[in-house]
């Protein structure tokens, strides 16, 4: 459960404060599927980074599963990212010198997972994105779609609760993009909370809840607030 209350994020640009986000109130229940849309510079990525504990808000409160994390020190945030959160980026961010398997293994190496255990989990994660045959390939030898699938298996290999995807199909053609969306939705169906930042309305509208940001504020919220399920509670100010 993600609970944001009055979240603001100011950047200092040449001595002038710029409000990237202001007054964001948002509750995202576990297992939700949410899309964040909006024009460039509207604060979608900043919001995603704050939810992913890569960035800290300058105002407001962020409770993750009931724990206040907005003011935690960097070391604690690292732990949260390690165990709770998986990132998928537009440009994949694979380490070029490593194989597909090596990239998936990366987070487990630094988390201190044992070697044998790592190999088993890499195999499972790659299988779940249909890339077992490509495990030994260098990232240069993979197509864009395949690279993003490696990135997804890397994001889930530590068993996180939340999957954050920032323009995951931005560098892909329609077919490859559709495959990536399918995989992400599959992970959501398996119980992960999925947040997707996208420009593509066709992708954005697939989400159960859809947020639209303009100038750092939520301007609209769509999606049936199904009373029987925990809804995304959105207040636009």
């Amino acid at each position, binding site marked *: 459960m993600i609970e944001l209350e009055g979240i603001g994020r100011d950047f200092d640009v040449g001595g002038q404060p710029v409000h990237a986000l202001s007054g964001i109130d948002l509750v995202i229940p576990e297992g939700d599927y949410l899309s964040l849309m909006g024009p460039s510079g509207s604060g979608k990525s900043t919001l995603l*980074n704050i939810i*992913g504990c*890569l*960035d800290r808000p300058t105002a407001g409160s962020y409770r993750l599963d009931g724990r206040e994390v907005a003011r935690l020190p*960097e*070391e604690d945030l*690292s*732990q*949260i*990212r*390690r*165990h709770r*959160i998986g*990132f998928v*980026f537009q440009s994949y*961010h694979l*380490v*070029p*010198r*490593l194989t597909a398997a*090596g990239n998936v293994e*990366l*987070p487990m*190496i*630094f*988390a*201190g997972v044992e*070697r044998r255990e790592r190999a088993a989990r890499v195999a499972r994660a790659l299988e779940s994105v249909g890339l077992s045959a490509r495990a030994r390939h260098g990232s240069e030898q993979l197509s864009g779609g395949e690279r993003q699938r490696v990135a997804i298996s*890397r994001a889930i290999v*530590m068993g996180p609760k939340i999957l954050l995807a920032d323009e995951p199909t931005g560098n892909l053609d329609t077919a490859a993009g559709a495959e990536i969306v399918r995989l992400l939705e599959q992970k959501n169906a398996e119980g992960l909370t999925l947040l997707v930042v996208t420009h593509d309305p066709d992708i954005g509208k697939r989400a159960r809840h859809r947020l639209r940001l303009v100038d750092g504020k939520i301007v609209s919220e769509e999606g049936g607030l199904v009373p029987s399920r925990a809804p995304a509670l959105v207040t636009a100010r």
Partner: protein
Amino acid sequence: MTLRDLVAFSAAALRGHRLRTGLSLLGVAIGVASVVLLTSLGEGARLYVTGEFASLGSNLLIVFPGKTETTGMSPFVTAASHDLTLDDAEAIARRVRLARRVAPLVFGGATARYGDRRRDVGVWGATADMQAVRKIGLRIGRYLPAGEAARGQRVCVIGAKVRQELFGSANPLGEILRLGDERFRIIGVMAPRGMSMGADLDEMVHVPVSRGMKMFNKTSLFRVLVEVSSHEEIPAARAALIDLVRERHQGVEDVTVWTQDSVLATFSRVLALLTAALAGIAGISLTVAGVGIMNVMLVSVSERTREIGLLKALGVTGRQVVAAFLVEAAILSTAGGLAGLGAAFGATRLFRALYPGFPARAPDWAVGAAVGVSLAVGLLFGALPARRASRLDPIAALARR
């Protein structure tokens, strides 16, 4: 994470840039090799010189006239310096109980002639005891005769080179050699000995000491070499000797007594200092290598900014990022250090093969220090790049193209 995983991760990163890795490794290797090589040469020089002294025999006292210490007296009250005479040497032999052998020595130069051949030679005026004291070997014939009467005889013993130059393959025994204006009968030829203390012993002619003093018109001996039975007797012998000479010289202590120990200690000290100075100079190149490592690591950090951003997004802590880059620097410097050590060992071996007489050998401390210092250099110069890496803002790092 385990150290093994960390090393594997960092080693893989280094393998990704073979040329850059190789070059900075080379820098460290050169630094370490120069430390080890230069200390080897310094240490070799020390061993060589101390070895030369040791070949004189360690039970030796060397007496020579005059006092080297500054006594601080005013110039009007100069202490009369007495000659160190042959009588003094005899008195030492007779009255210093611990003196097993006493070999007086007078030294000069002369032109040796045989037939129409001539050659400038060094002339030692010595006695029979000199043979044992300086461990002089004979090729043919015998050394100077012993006994009081023999000290003035016109006989001589010639060095190997003198024989070679003046007689060729002919037998020189019994022949008459002219030294300056005097004629000496050759009674022996010394075995080749080579250089010692900067003088070629094979170019010497030994004559009886009284003859030598007359030849060179000397009233004072050049040295008196006193041999005792064991090393432990040296201090007592030295004291007895100085007392005796003072008594004979109207209460003035006007001789200097060198012992093997003191000479050795002095040389050893000077040469150890030389070795340290050489190591210091070589250390500069190690520092340069460290700067090279820092440079390579900074390039690596800026080139891998996106990777560092990714690692942070994956939950890698700042401390782990520091550790990864430090391990990288440590691998670079230690591998370079080992390579340099190998090269230096190869070079000293080659050097020993080329100059067998010169015992070039790296002291143990230099080997340990070179590897330890190169590791320290890697960690020291890797610290700044590692810190820089750990402080990168992950969002900005990920956004870098």
